[in-house]
């Protein structure tokens, strides 16, 4: 029985106490849920455990033995495995190639023994119920499967202690369920697991013990059997939090967005959208539910001018915009919260100020002719930071140094911080903390109440259910079902998402 223990870990960054005397313990056959808002110091703590940072104080013990990690290599050989929130996979390599990267089994004459490697990958996936095709290329497989590859990678290196950093952030509800099955399988196989999340429901469902981190310090432990979501949320945020979205029933007006028979070809030349039609009316939130990869990404890209439309029409406020550029769409008072904030929503090395004007830099007051007015931009950024509660020491620091939740707030602030008639938001709360989710949800409802039309695409079923006045379910490029919000259960929608006729 192996035990991993952190004692009195303290880590200071200039001006910030990231970890303050943190104690933590996990043993074989146990799942420890580590709960905390983004910025609470979870990631720093795990980076220390993984050898990426040195702790200023405190020690790491494995089976009572103090450890000295000077890099991830040491941590890995001590049996620690980390599945990061952002996968560390080579997109053009196969599953097996990714798994063996750096620890390739070498055959005769220094040649990589791919056959042996493939066999091991198959064995591991069979043993832990991690179904993958060893020959599949990473860029071709869905996120959920990519995560399995990450897990196999860790198991391939004989990890006894597995750390999952926000593992469900990128998964569909079905994938989450499957993932929990995998977690339990790993637990039964005798692995010790640290499951980092900010999702209360999940941590209650799967953990054996729950530890809560706030502002760098351990503020309490909870038993899943007795704790409630509200207890945990209060512990985590430090104040009572509203977990349900409070909203009046909607009073929809005229159609703002009209989509007719939209056909779009995807990146792999597949038919991503096979003739989709729907309306979004003023003062209405339409949620699009569906398992990732069923055409939602392409739908949003087509509506925002980022992807070519093959056939069909799109109208905004009665004006045809089927083949409009992103800038023209922007000109129709459309806000777009993109699916992947780091890939396309933000320029990470840019400051908050520079990011705040990313899609409006060419307009007054941020520029006059070809000359930027950084004073105006800075003022706007300062306003938005204030108004949208972006936690940052300054508007002049790079977006990359903000936490995920604060990065998302910057995007929401930019998109909502002007007059909008139509909001197209994709995964608006992916991978961010409860406090920020609550905040962003309030803003979305506020926009509706001010008369905007909103199209919210999310793979988080709970989010779609909580926000939507009307719910569209996408499957394989079609809208397969439509429900009124409030009158439908997660189970019903889940069936439609899997392609079953309603």
């Amino acid at each position, binding site marked *: 029985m192996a035990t991993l223990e952190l004692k009195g870990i303290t880590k200071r960054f200039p001006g910030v106490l*990231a970890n303050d005397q943190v104690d933590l313990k996990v043993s074989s056959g146990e799942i420890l849920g580590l709960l905390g808002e983004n*910025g609470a110091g979870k990631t720093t703590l795990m980076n220390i455990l993984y050898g990426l940072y040195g702790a200023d104080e405190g020690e790491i013990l494995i089976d009572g033995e103090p450890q000295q990690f000077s890099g991830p290599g040491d941590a890995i050989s001590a049996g620690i495995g980390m599945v990061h929130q952002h996968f560390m996979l080579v997109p053009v390599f196969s599953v097996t190639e990714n798994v063996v990267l750096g620890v390739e089994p070498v055959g005769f004459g220094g040649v990589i023994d791919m056959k042996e490697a493939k066999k091991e990958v198959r064995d591991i996936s069979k043993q832990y119920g991690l179904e993958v095709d060893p020959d599949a290329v990473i860029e071709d497989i869905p996120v959920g499967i990519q995560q399995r590859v990450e897990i196999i990678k860790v198991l391939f290196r004989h990890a006894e202690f597995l750390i999952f950093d926000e593992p469900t952030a990128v998964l569909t509800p079905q994938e989450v369920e499957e993932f929990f099955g995998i977690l339990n399988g790993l637990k039964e196989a005798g692995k010790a697991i640290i499951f980092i999340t900010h999702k209360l429901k999940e941590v209650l469902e799967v953990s054996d013990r729950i530890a809560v981190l706030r502002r760098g310090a351990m503020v309490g432990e909870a038993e899943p059997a007795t704790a409630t979501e509200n207890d945990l949320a209060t512990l985590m945020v430090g104040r009572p939090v509203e977990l349900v979205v409070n909203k009046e029933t909607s009073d929809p007006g005229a159609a703002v967005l009209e989509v007719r028979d939209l056909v779009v070809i995807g990146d792999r030349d597949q038919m991503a959208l096979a003739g989709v039609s729907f309306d979004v009316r003023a003062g209405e939130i339409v949620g699009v539910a569906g398992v990732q990869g069923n055409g939602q990404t392409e739908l949003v890209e087509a509506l925002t001018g980022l992807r070519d439309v093959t056939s069909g029409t799109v109208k905004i406020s009665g004006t045809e915009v089927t083949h409009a550029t992103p800038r023209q769409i922007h000109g129709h008072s459309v806000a777009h919260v993109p699916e992947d904030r780091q890939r396309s929503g933000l320029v990470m090395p840019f400051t908050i100020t520079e990011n705040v004007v990313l899609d409006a830099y060419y307009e007054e007051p941020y520029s006059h002719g070809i000359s930027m007015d950084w004073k105006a931009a800075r003022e706007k950024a300062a306003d938005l930071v204030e108004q949208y509660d972006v936690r940052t020491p300054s508007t002049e620091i790079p977006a990359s140094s903000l936490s995920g939740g604060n990065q998302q707030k910057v995007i929401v602030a930019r998109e909502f911080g002007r007059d909008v008639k139509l909001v197209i938001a994709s995964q608006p709360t992916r991978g961010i903390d409860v406090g920020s989710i609550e905040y962003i949800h309030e803003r979305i409802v506020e926009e509706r109440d001010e008369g905007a039309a909103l199209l919210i695409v999310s793979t988080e079923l709970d989010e779609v259910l909580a926000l939507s006045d009307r719910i569209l379910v996408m499957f394989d490029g079609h809208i397969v079902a439509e429900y009124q919000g409030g009158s439908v259960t997660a189970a019903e929608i889940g069936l439609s998402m899997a392609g079953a006729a309603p």
Partner: protein
Amino acid sequence: MTDEPKGEAPPEMNGDADNGEKSGWAAFMDDLTGVNVDWRSAVLVPVLAMTAALAVSVLIIVASDIELWRSFSISALGDSFGQAGSAMWALLTGSLGSLAAVSSTLAFAAPLILAGLSVAIGFKAGLFNIGAEGQMLMGGMVAVALGITIDIPVFLNVPLAIIGAMIGGGIWGGIAGLLRARTGAHEVITTIMLNSIAGLAVVWMLSTKFFQPEGRLDPVSEDIAVSARLPRLLGFLDRSDVRVHLGIVVALIAAYAIYWVLFKSTIGYEFRAVGFNPNAAHYGGMRVTWLYTSVMALSGALAGLAGMAQINGLLYRASPGFAAGIGFDAISLALLGRSHPAGVVAAGFLFGALRAGGIEMQVATDVPVDLISVIQALVVVFIAAPALIRAIFRVKTGEEIGQLTTGWGT
């Protein structure tokens, strides 16, 4: 800048931990330039790299002294160090020791700065322009063509040469940009190829009757009109060895203009956005392919100016290879200057000083002029490997310079 982090939760520190707190002078520099830069590392690293490169050069001079190896003795070692010392002293006096030396440094610096800006603006937009050499040749040839055919007053002829050279270099650079935008052909490949084409095109052009002076068979062009020459800044001294000319002024104006474009204009904002994240740029409504073309055209125009500075400032005529590798030195310059116009200017003065000092070093000692290339290469090695600088000088220099350009085929 010195505000305490607001809100309750401390920010997650993923990047440079120093970001929140800049010292007074760094904050002042930010205000001055309007750019958020880690000034300590931006200034310290190049200075230390230069120091380290000179130190290693001294060791190289000592170690490559054949006499020392034939009969090793303390006094021979002393002689070798003495030789290295005089070489370094010659570098200093040859670049800064007299009016002629300073003017020579400035004359050499002008095309270096312009070409360095050319590469730097490419880096800022995520493009690796290896073609400054070819663009210099093309810009320079346009300047020559104008200079040998048109003789109008100097205040008209010089601007004409400047504009012509920018157009010539700009078209040559723009071709690579257009290929990148239209077909995805990587600019590294296309600019290398365009360098070869430009080099051979110059040889061919110089063998035509249009460029060749009557009676002469060498591939050397006719002299440009006196009115097309960049006026000597200290011409009133009437000293042929005081060579500093208007080109350095053109270079400094160009540096300020590029600074303004990059950090104060909408198009510069677009360049930088595309450089860091083309997806986000597309999301923000920018025409990414058009930007690639215009960045390469601007980059080429700057290189063309460098060719013009070479022709109209010093040579007054074209011969094959008049770009003299400046287009490649420019890559080092842009790295050394961290792709910032002010950095490129500083690096340009440095390399110009090395070139000017190199002549004096050759005259005064037996150290071959190739040492200058070695010093330049060493500076770049130390710049590209801040870890080395950190190890040698035990200083904190911030993060690595990071990815300068997008990868192959992306």
